[in-house]
């Protein structure tokens, strides 16, 4: 009887959790293909090579339109969360210095341009959202700092968008400034297909297929959204081992103390 009660309770909880997930599937969308990610599972970590390749894609492609405001250049380096992307301090300085940022006012009361430093947040491609919209037919490319956590489907969804461009189906009217994307809600997306084969030349010589680029940049964006993921999972494993041990000891103590009552 008690087992049934427990099962029912768990089922009830499960329903509640699942029902919120089921919501997203009400719109007619092809299911997201589940990708294999290095950060999946309780022991998942970030594949550093994929992170750096993903950064290259972001740097050369995404960052032309999208900002990454919550991340600093220093986060890429050894001082960053969990050791960052695996770049050393000099590499980080070079990456930062390639961008100009506005600082000031100086002693003369004037704003001035200077190369970015490790402590600066990633310099956005446009000074403000309005400028960004003006350059993109009124559409605003969203900030990518949290994009993976901010969408139902997370990493698989972002991957799905990047690889989901298809020819517009016959009979569907598509405005000139829009593209058909099978995973985008409503299927009309303002962003032109951002990736293509050999769009970037990877420093490590990996062949840059569209799928490879998408996979790498999503790994990078997952890192940007959840930079402490490795630390969290590592700590979690230790905590769970401790709790299992502690709970075992407590159970033994409980049995011993209650032995005189039963």
């Amino acid at each position, binding site marked *: 009887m008690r087992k049934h009660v427990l099962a*029912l*309770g768990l089922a*009830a*909880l499960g*329903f*509640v*959790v699942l*029902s*919120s997930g*089921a*919501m997203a599937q*009400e719109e007619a969308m092809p299911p997201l293909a589940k990708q294999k990610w290095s950060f999946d599972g*309780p022991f998942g970590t970030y594949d550093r090579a994929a992170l750096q390749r993903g950064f290259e894609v972001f740097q050369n492609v995404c960052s032309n339109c999208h900002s990454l405001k*919550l991340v600093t250049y220093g*986060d890429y380096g050894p001082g960053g*969360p969990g050791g960052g992307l695996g770049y050393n301090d000099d590499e980080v300085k070079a990456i930062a210095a390639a961008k100009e940022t506005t600082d000031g006012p100086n002693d003369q009361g004037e704003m001035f341009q200077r190369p970015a430093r490790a402590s600066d947040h990633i310099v956005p491609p446009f000074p403000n959202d309005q400028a960004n919209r003006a350059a993109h037919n009124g559409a605003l490319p969203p900030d990518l*700092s*949290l994009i993976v*956590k*901010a*969408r*139902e489907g*997370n990493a698989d969804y972002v991957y799905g968008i990047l690889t989901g461009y298809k020819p517009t189906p016959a009979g569907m009217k598509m405005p000139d400034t829009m593209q058909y994307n099978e995973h985008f*809600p409503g299927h009309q997306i303002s962003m032109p297909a951002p990736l293509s084969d050999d769009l970037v030349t990877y420093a490590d010589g990996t062949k840059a297929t569209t799928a490879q680029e998408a996979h790498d940049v999503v790994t990078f964006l997952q890192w940007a*959204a959840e*930079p*402490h993921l490795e*630390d*969290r*999972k590592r*700590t*979690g*494993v230790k*905590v*769970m081992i401790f*709790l*299992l041990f*502690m*709970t075992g000891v*407590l*159970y033994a*103590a*409980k049995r*011993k*103390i*209650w*032995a*005189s*009552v*039963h």
Partner: protein
Amino acid sequence: MALQSQNKVVRWIDHRLPIFTFMNHELNEYPTPKNLNYWWNYGSLAGIMLLIMIITGIFLAMEYTPNVNLAFDSVERIMRDVNYGWLIRYIHMNGASFFFIVTYIHIFRGLYFGSYKQPRELLWMIGVVILLCMMATAFMGYVLPWGQMSFWGATVITNLFSAVPLVGNEIVTWLWGGFSVDNPTLNRFYALHYLLPFVILGIVGLHVMALHTHGSNNPLGIDRKGPQDSIPFHPYYTIKDMFGLGVFLLIFCGFVFFGPNLLGDPANYIRANPLQTPPEIVPEWYFLPFYAMLRSVPDILFIKAKLAGVLAMFGSIGLLFILPWLDTSPVRSARFRPVYKWVFWLLVIDIVLLAMVGAHRPEGLWVIAGRLGTLYYFVHFLILFPLIGIFERPLPLPNSISEAVTKKGGGKVAGATAPMEKP
């Protein structure tokens, strides 16, 4: 009885301020029914969750900035740059969900075993007040990160008060401190979100005081007849609660460390944008059944659907206050109530159904399911509760707790003063 301590300092203090005697009386020798099962763990778990929320909350408050332009970034700063900020924030975020899980189980346990009945009516009613305060606290806390769901959830819920006849709109403006959810709203929600947990802590004190007046109910629902029915709280229930806490923490930490965002809405990682309504405005899962009731009620005679929905939502909690008088059965535990035992599960199913309705767009079958579910909720308490008590024929109750517990008839009874050590 005054505490007999070997420690001079303890004796000196206790003679002047009997806190040690008090603690000994309430936490150590406090007589407890010997047959409490694991469903009785959730009260102390809820208390521990409250403390976890207060402690993590205070540390978050040290880094959080309640300003519409800075709130979102300050939370992200906690997640990225504050040492172990991600841990504290994820504990607090998931803690809210788990606080509700244990509290809901605690309430359902009370419903199943009749813990709200004479002489524990006030204990139950104080509990309902705690639930209301918890809901207010959770709602306002969810607004603080200033994500899309924060903003639009706050907008939808505060707008409910506009359903009040005549002065509705004035009330809403007064709640907002302006003409929309904005900086003044965020500031007052922050102040209240910090205040209310301490109010809850105080009410929990009253809850425990009322509990300790007549002691815990038990799975048999019969009163204790003498010392043979009781065991001291310590060590028996301290260790049982500790073990339960261990199991609970395993599940809780599983979520915190390996799925911290499973229970949350992704849209709250998007900065609040008053100009862009999200496609779905959904509250956190623990409010879904109430949200479903809010949306389900149609126009009733001269009452508009909006007001009727608001009344149903608040009424669903409000009627819990009079529950002790709606239940006409003299028997507490559902174990001896052959009809109620099954009807209880209908309520559980009903609430799960309502939660699912709350998570879906009000279209098609979900509308009908929502209406039926809401109707059943009220029928359950207002009609079935009184009727079952009258027509149900309860099973014979056992003579005493110890007789029912010691099945082999006359096993060793650990009296109220039994020493914990075995020879």
